[in-house]
């Protein structure tokens, strides 16, 4: 199939349909509105169901219901709307149900603005709702990668019975790039024998619940979920290493910011400074080992995390580097996008001081 020009939000929606998603529940918010708009057109064509709920809270609980019945289901929103969905998300994680949640992040806190941001990193990777749980968080840096990751997200969700979040920013949602809808390799997945679809000859009802009133049982449930998370940390880390060989400074950046950093790396190279990049594609599980390995490289003098936030992922970089090298932060926030030039200047400032 030839490459076609697609808008990020629409490509994400089409990728979900290609992955077998047949249910979408959402509520409008900029800058992700093209996702529900596209779903409202396409889902009826493939025998699916699109429903614009009365609120984000209703939408996520509809996702809970459809996931419990074993359907492939997705919702999407942007930062304030994702905050509203947190109660439902922790219930879905607690009940061990698969679904895909797209967050096209905008500036915060509060209503914030509508321009691109990465300030929902903590919320996405550290739980977001109450209780001990994780989402698998995938952060594409291009529309093509978004299309591939969305399709894989449904398989990851089904394999581990856990919600998966696609974390993009307003640029990923709004920009257009060439996309090829190649066949993504499907995983061998277990039957959804747990789904609440009626008895079908069985004697016992399937019950989906996140209530464990006996503390010992609740602890057991947590331990079981965390065994699953250990498997995810072992099997599912995705990361791109770029130009690390001989690098004096290693950038940490994800999503569209990683692309801006790559421009900065090229500019630094022209000035005789070798710089590399570690781009986490899974934000949870975080590619700790890649950072530790880079920290042990003799050429590396420092790390610089570049984000569209006041500094969130930088904390995971610090934890991963274990104090072996200094970790610095540069960011723009509230919808402002860092320029390659500013990143170059920041790197030079750090290296000047580190020498």
């Amino acid at each position, binding site marked *: 199939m030839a490459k076609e020009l697609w808008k990020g939000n629409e490509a994400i929606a089409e990728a979900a349909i290609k992955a077998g998603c047949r249910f979408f529940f959402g509520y409008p918010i900029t800058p992700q509105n093209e996702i529900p708009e596209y779903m409202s057109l396409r889902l009826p064509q493939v025998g699916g169901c699109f429903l614009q709920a009365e609120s984000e809270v209703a939408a996520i609980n509809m996702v809970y219901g459809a996931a419990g019945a074993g359907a492939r289901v997705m919702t999407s929103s942007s930062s304030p709307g994702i905050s509203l969905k947190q109660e439902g998300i922790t219930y879905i994680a607690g009940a061990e149900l698969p679904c895909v949640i797209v967050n096209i992040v905008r500036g915060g806190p509060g209503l914030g603005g509508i321009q691109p941001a990465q300030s929902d990193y903590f919320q996405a990777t550290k739980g977001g709702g109450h209780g001990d749980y994780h989402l698998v968080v995938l952060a594409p840096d291009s529309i093509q990668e978004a299309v591939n990751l969305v399709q894989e997200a449904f398989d990851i969700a089904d394999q581990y019975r856990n919600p998966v979040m696609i974390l993009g920013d307003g640029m990923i949602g709004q920009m257009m*790039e060439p996309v090829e809808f190649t066949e993504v390799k499907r995983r061998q997945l277990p039957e959804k024998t747990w789904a609440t679809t009626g008895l079908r000859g069985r004697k016992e009802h399937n019950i989906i619940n996140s209530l464990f009133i006996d503390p010992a049982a609740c602890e057991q449930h947590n331990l079981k979920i965390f065994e699953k998370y250990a498997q995810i940390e072992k099997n599912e880390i995705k990361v791109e290493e770029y130009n690390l060989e001989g690098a004096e400074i290693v950038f940490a950046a994800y999503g569209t910011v990683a*692309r801006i950093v790559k421009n900065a790396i*090229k500019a630094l190279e022209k000035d005789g400074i070798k710089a590399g990049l570690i781009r986490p594609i899974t934000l949870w599980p975080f590619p700790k080992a890649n950072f530790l390995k880079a920290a042990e490289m003799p050429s590396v003098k420092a790390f610089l995390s570049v984000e569209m936030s006041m500094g969130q992922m930088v904390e995971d970089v610090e934890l991963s580097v274990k104090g072996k090298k200094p970790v610095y932060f540069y960011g723009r926030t509230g919808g402002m996008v860092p320029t390659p030039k500013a990143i170059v200047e920041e790197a030079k400032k750090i290296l000047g001081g580190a020498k």
Partner: protein
Amino acid sequence: MTHQIIMAGFGGQGVMSMGKILAEAGLKEGKNVSWLPSYGPEMRGGTANCSVIISDEPIGAPTVTEATTAIVMNRPSLDKFEKDVLPGGHLLINSSLIDRKATRDDINVYYIPANEIADELGTGKIANMVMLGAFIKVTNAAKEDTIMEYIAEVFSGKNADIIPLNKEALKRGADCIK
């Protein structure tokens, strides 16, 4: 070769469409392309702009902060983006609606009376295609034939009668560049 283009104007002047058409043409010619719009509470009469990159290399940042070319369709866009053109780059000014000259002397400036030409062709709506015609004449970022191939795909069937108008607009724009 990498073209980093900013296109800007009033909402309704066809700035976003101009960018999309260019990106589609670049893709048809086998280039790497990206199209990034300003988005938000813009509406007809508000300001709108998009960043288009056409490159032989893989595209890094989709944002354009240093433009090889800026196309400005109205005065606020000239005021905002003149400074973002790289030295030696190009600035295309819609002189029908912009009453001042460029202030920089380290860039190539072209004045195109896009709305006057569009009105002569019968509709002001086609001013964006006049500018696009001038742009490809200056930069060779895409071929006129490729743009027309895309236009013919979009306006098929009962809308096909506006295809020649688009071709004429591109040509009249190109004729402005000596």
